[in-house]
């Protein structure tokens, strides 16, 4: 276990309202989440001296952290735009911990939000050389990229589409218990199988929809957090690993990035997969959850399909996964709601979807066709 384990904590949690076509900007949603996180922490706004965020996907802006800080009336001593897509949420917390440990700041606001539906900026323009080797071939959206390793997994291990469906069903079941989730009507494996084929082998219900929403946390030292009104969620372990930038660079269709990030987080925390009570795993596509379960060590390589069956990842199962509904059913927001949900679970404040007795939670953030992973382990006490 590292001396960093249990030294810092999430001391404030904020979520904006979520949904589709909310008619609100990403900035408006991010400010809502940020102000709720600050209020939830019980800190004065002026205590916040660091801002970590990510420029929105459909309204990109330079120096976004500075703009956000200005809108909040902050004069931070540390800011950063963490542009790592779905890994950015956990990477912000990692950046915050590093800046706190370096003495660059004392109290960090991390916030991530998007307005992906309704009016937005143009997309699909060729902007980087790698796109020259994707867009002309019709690789124009994430379902195509991620369906490639999914197909390979089916080929190598006999994984089935119905097993992918079990992930979608679990996320929807949990979203039904979450008042702040976008899609709450229950679905079955049969619904998953009947949903249209998008990028075969992915059905529509394998793919997370685009949605609007933002979430935020306050990260500070455990010493400060203990003086605040609400129970802190202790940061027990955190780690990041990058192995490739896009699927084109992947030597294989496995994810050494997920493995590396989780092993760093486990090592820092002194915990192992068997010690984890709740898992909030980045789920842009059902398959990614299955792959993460393997690479995070909850089952062996190739056994992810069998692992997710028979309710094992549902509330009441052996390892509840994506208890808030995940990207698949709650909201996209580049996975930041996985962090707020994990922290809420550690407070025991998740209401109908609370995992009884949960003491530890693991969070995965990933992007770059699984080439970038950031892993966070939270606890309800310092171990």
């Amino acid at each position: 276990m590292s001396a960093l384990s249990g030294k810092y904590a999430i001391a404030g949690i904020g979520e904006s309202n979520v949904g589709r076509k909310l008619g609100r900007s990403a900035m408006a949603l991010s400010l809502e989440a940020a102000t709720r996180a600050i209020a939830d922490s019980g800190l004065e706004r002026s205590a916040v001296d660091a801002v970590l965020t990510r420029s929105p996907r459909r309204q990109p802006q330079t120096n976004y952290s500075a703009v956000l800080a200005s809108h909040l009336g902050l004069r931070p001593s540390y800011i950063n735009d963490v542009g790592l897509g779905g890994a950015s949420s956990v990477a912000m917390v990692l950046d915050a911990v590093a800046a706190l440990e370096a003495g660059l700041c004392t109290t960090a606001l991390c916030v991530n939000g998007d307005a992906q539906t309704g009016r937005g900026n143009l997309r699909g323009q060729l902007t980087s050389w790698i796109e020259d080797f994707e867009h002309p071939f019709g690789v124009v959206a994430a379902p195509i990229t991620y369906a490639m390793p999914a197909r390979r997994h089916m080929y190598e291990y006999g994984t089935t589409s119905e097993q992918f469906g079990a992930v979608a069903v679990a996320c929807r079941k949990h979203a039904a218990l979450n008042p702040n989730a976008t899609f709450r009507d229950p679905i079955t494996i049969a619904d998953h199988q009947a949903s249209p084929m998008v990028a075969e082998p992915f059905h529509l219900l394998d793919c997370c929809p685009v949605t609007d929403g933002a979430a935020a946390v306050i990260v500070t030292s455990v010493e400060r957090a203990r003086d605040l009104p609400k129970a802190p969620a202790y940061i027990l372990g955190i780690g990041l690993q990058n192995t490739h930038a896009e699927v084109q660079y992947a030597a294989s269709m496995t994810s050494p990035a997920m493995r590396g990030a989780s092993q760093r987080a486990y090592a820092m925390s002194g915990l192992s997969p068997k010690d984890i009570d709740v898992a909030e795993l980045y789920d842009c596509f059902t398959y990614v959850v299955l792959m993460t379960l393997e690479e995070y060590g909850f089952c062996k390589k190739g056994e992810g399909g069998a692992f997710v069956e028979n309710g094992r990842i549902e509330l009441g199962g052996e390892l509840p996964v994506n208890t808030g509904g995940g990207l698949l059913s709650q909201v996209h927001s580049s996975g930041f709601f996985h962090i707020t949900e994990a922290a809420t679970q550690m407070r025991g404040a998740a209401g109908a979807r609370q995992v009884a007795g949960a003491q530890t939670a693991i969070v995965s953030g990933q992007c770059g066709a699984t080439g970038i992973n950031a892993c966070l382990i939270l606890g309800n006490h310092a171990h």
Partner: protein
Amino acid sequence: MFTVLPKADPDTQAFWDGCLQDQLLLQRCSACHVFRHPPRPVCPACLSDRFSWDRASGYGTVYTFVVVRRALGRGWEERIPYVVAVVELDEGAHFLTNIVNVEPEAVAIGMPVEVTFAELDGTTKLPVFQPRASAAAR
């Protein structure tokens, strides 16, 4: 037919010029001799910036593939269904491409394929793959 044209840059111009000549060119490191794709200035294996453009055999096998059945970008409606694949070239490099001249249902992992060049607009050709004609005889 709807197309998106690549915008070549100094690192990739030779690749696209080769396609216009119906030649599949791969960068090969002059120091460690590893083939790489997509083109880039430095070898990821040994960091050497010396390389040659070598003509590839144009043969490989399907490593994985996706059948795109819904248009996921504006303009792609008229193209669906289409097959996106990673082909493992005989030279070892992985190559993202399309599989053409075959029903999507007939594509399979391990299928032997060969390169063919699809004319886009008179100025650009796209390297795509089709089932290898001599596959049965191999």
